[in-house]
């Protein structure tokens, strides 16, 4: 069996709080997780869940209170291991006196590439993230989205085997998000391991082999998106247009949601045919019929809600 790309073993991080810094606040609580080589793992969780803390621990930017982790079998304390990894920090900020080209050239130097190889790589990755035309613009003139693109380029510049991306879609417009999705898929096709944190659940559902959900510093569940949420159909969604000048019957109108000239109605599966028949008699034009399944978002919101109610219960007990 091959060595996992990432092994996290009981990783815990406490931060000192208060004036005397004697009390501690637990940001990450005994996180244990494995990511196989070539896998894309979405690391999900609300703000303050401990996602960025986990990534910072793995990058050696902060030190664990307890536990350990290995990347491709090597300890996270081993600086040499960083040759095989790439990292995009959350809301990245770079030396703003450099141009995009200079920034990537600077980072490429840490991997010992010669001048010709650096020039080739920098050009290729600027092209890949859509910054080729802004190569000679100083980063202080970059928008948030452009900085994010530069951040992605520096993370993958050296063809790392394991890529860590902290909120890679943050600050990007829809086109940018799609481009980042394509880059992640491309990395996957090349057999690289991608570990990315996100709030955007649809991206996780679309890209990930597995997702891990972190709430309140604790891992709530990990698995394939399809395994985590039940695939059982909850109902059917019908999208339709009413006939011009004709009112919908009250039985339908009460249940339908009006969406700019169209209606959406959700019915139990066994009522589907009867409802379609009813709509036909009203001369409604049926646009689509879609099964309704619970999404990762439903699962995620349920977990967050449960955590909140638990912490509220603890607060009440403490009082």
């Amino acid at each position, binding site marked *: 069996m091959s060595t996992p790309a990432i092994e996290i073993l009981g990783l815990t991080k406490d931060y000192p709080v208060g004036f005397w810094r004697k009390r501690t606040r637990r940001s990450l609580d005994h996180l244990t997780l494995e990511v196989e080589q070539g896998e894309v793992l979405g690391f999900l969780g609300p703000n303050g869940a401990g996602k960025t803390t986990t990534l910072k621990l793995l990058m050696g930017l902060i030190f664990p209170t307890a536990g350990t982790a290995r990347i491709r079998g090597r300890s996270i304390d081993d*600086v040499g291991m960083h040759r095989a990894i790439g990292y*995009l920090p959350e809301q990245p900020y770079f030396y703003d006196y450099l141009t995009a080209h200079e920034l990537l050239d600077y980072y490429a130097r840490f991997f010992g590439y010669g001048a010709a190889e650096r020039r080739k790589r920098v050009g290729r990755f600027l092209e890949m993230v859509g910054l080729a035309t802004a190569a000679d613009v100083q980063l202080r003139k970059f928008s948030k989205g452009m900085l994010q693109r530069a951040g992605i380029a520096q993370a993958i510049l050296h063809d790392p085997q394991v890529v860590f991306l902290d909120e890679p879609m943050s600050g990007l417009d829809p086109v940018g998000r799609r481009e980042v999705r394509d880059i992640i898929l491309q990395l996957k096709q090349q057999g690289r391991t991608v570990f990315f944190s996100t709030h955007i659940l649809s991206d996780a559902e679309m890209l990930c082999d597995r997702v891990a959900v972190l709430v309140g510093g604790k891992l709530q569940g990990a698995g394939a998106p399809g395994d985590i949420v039940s695939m059982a159909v909850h109902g059917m969604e019908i999208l339709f247009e009413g006939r011009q000048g004709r009112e919908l019957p009250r039985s339908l109108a009460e249940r339908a949601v009006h969406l700019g000239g169209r209606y959406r109605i959700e019915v139990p599966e066994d009522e589907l045919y009867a409802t379609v028949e009813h709509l036909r008699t009203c001369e409604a034009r049926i646009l689509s019929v879609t099964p309704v399944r619970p999404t990762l978002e439903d699962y995620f919101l349920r977990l967050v809600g449960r955590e909140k109610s638990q912490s509220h219960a603890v607060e009440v007990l403490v009082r």
Partner: protein
Amino acid sequence: MSALTAVVAINTFREAVRDRVLYNLVLFALVMIGAAILVGQISIGIDRLVIINLGLSAISLFGLVMAVFIGVGLVYKEIEKRTLYSLLAKPIGRQQFLVGKYAGLLLTLAVNTALMTIGLAGALFYVGRPFMRSDLSILVAVYLILLELALVTALALFFSCFSTPMLSTLFTLGIYLTGSFAADLREVGDLTRSPLLKGFMRALYYLLPNFHNFNAIAVAAHGETIPFSLVAQNTLYACAYVTVVLLAAAAVFSRRNLK
């Protein structure tokens, strides 16, 4: 110095240049031009003394201001702006980064000092004085100023690893001022009858860097030779002190959680 350290050092130098730090040279040039014109008009026979004194003092002061104000932000700014995050994810250790930042500022100071020394030579040339062999002591004095700046930079970098720029400035300048009067501290201690105070003053004398020893401005201005033994002794002292301070900085920084 490893290749990775050199990469950081060159980038630190580039940052200083792009942040227009070397613009201080314009001010220095103005001071030198003003002094040369003024001295040419009012002083007879002491133009050499005045120009060298003023020039070397300005080189020392400008260098000190740069070493402190850039030095205290060297690490702090990287942490605050989070530029360090993507850098430390590369195969470079924290110690290498620290030494690179130090070397980068030292390079900036060396270039700045060299250009100011050329300015001083220009001012001396302007007042119509031929260059003499004794002028070599000006270069030696400049070298000693650089050693002093290397020490100040190391102290600023050390404080920058765990403190805010304002506090680091206070600490660094505090040590610089106290260290400039280190010999006086020992003498004050020797004059007192309290053994405790005497011991404390002696401890300060030995612990604090003795900046007074790096000051050879007056000797150079009077055209006297600066003994080689003093230069060698100061070089060894500065190297040893800088090593200890950088090791302390590395010890603090290698355990620091970046927020």
